[in-house]
């Protein structure tokens, strides 16, 4: 329904931010996953998004998550001979997740979520104002 375009568009932004935060949480949770050097490291996840068209009067209608891009599977190899997963040279493979980047992304995802929620509540308030008109 075109009446609620503003709300629906902002809601796609909220959904996108939520997916983004899910991916960041997953990256942080798996940040220290050590594996054998013969195996792949955990690959950081980055949501891939695209802008949606088809809104009112040629405007767009929000954003959609179309997939997930993955970081390097090689990760980094670390010398840790005490690990049960270490190979003959004492090396283990760890994911190449950049904590500082994940934290700044988390702040951006949070601010995006808040901004879109603000857009929803402002649009809702505006509709209520329209309803307040005296005929």
């Amino acid at each position: 329904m075109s009446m609620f375009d503003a709300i629906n568009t902002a809601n796609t932004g909220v959904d996108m931010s939520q997916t983004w935060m899910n991916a960041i949480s997953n990256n942080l949770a798996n940040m220290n996953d050590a594996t054998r050097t013969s195996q792949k490291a955990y690959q950081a996840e980055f949501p891939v998004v695209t802008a949606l068209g088809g809104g009112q009067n040629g405007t767009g209608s929000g954003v959609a998550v179309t997939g997930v891009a993955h970081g390097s599977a090689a990760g980094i190899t670390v010398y840790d001979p005490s690990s049960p997963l270490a190979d003959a040279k004492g090396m283990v493979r760890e994911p190449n997740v950049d904590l500082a980047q994940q934290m700044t992304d988390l702040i951006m995802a949070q601010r995006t979520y808040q901004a879109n929620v603000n857009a929803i509540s402002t649009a809702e308030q505006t509709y209520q104002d329209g309803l307040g008109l005296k005929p």
Partner: protein
Amino acid sequence: MTAPIGAIGAAFPPLGAVGAAGATAGTAATTPATGAVAAANAAAAQSASGSFGQVLGNALSGVQNLQTNADHLAVQAATGNLNSVTNYMVAANQADVATQLTVAVRNNAVQAFQQIMNMQV
């Protein structure tokens, strides 16, 4: 009984597409000359515009769809299957605003009918 209300219905043609009501209903009420224009617009915009009762019925079934969607999401929220908190809030807000708008249009139409009925002859 329905005939005069049908005439009033012509003043509120976009009711089926609830969103457009604010735009044209206001002009139709203030200047009688625009009534024909509004009716023409409505014919172009919505082929299903019939009597006031039909139009209001269409609007109410649209509102009913929004309510059903909100109820569905409320059940998901209660059972813990809700994907996004805002999905429910948005659906509930949409149902609320659409219901208020439909009721407001119905109240105004009935008020207009009663004003005509109370005219001194």
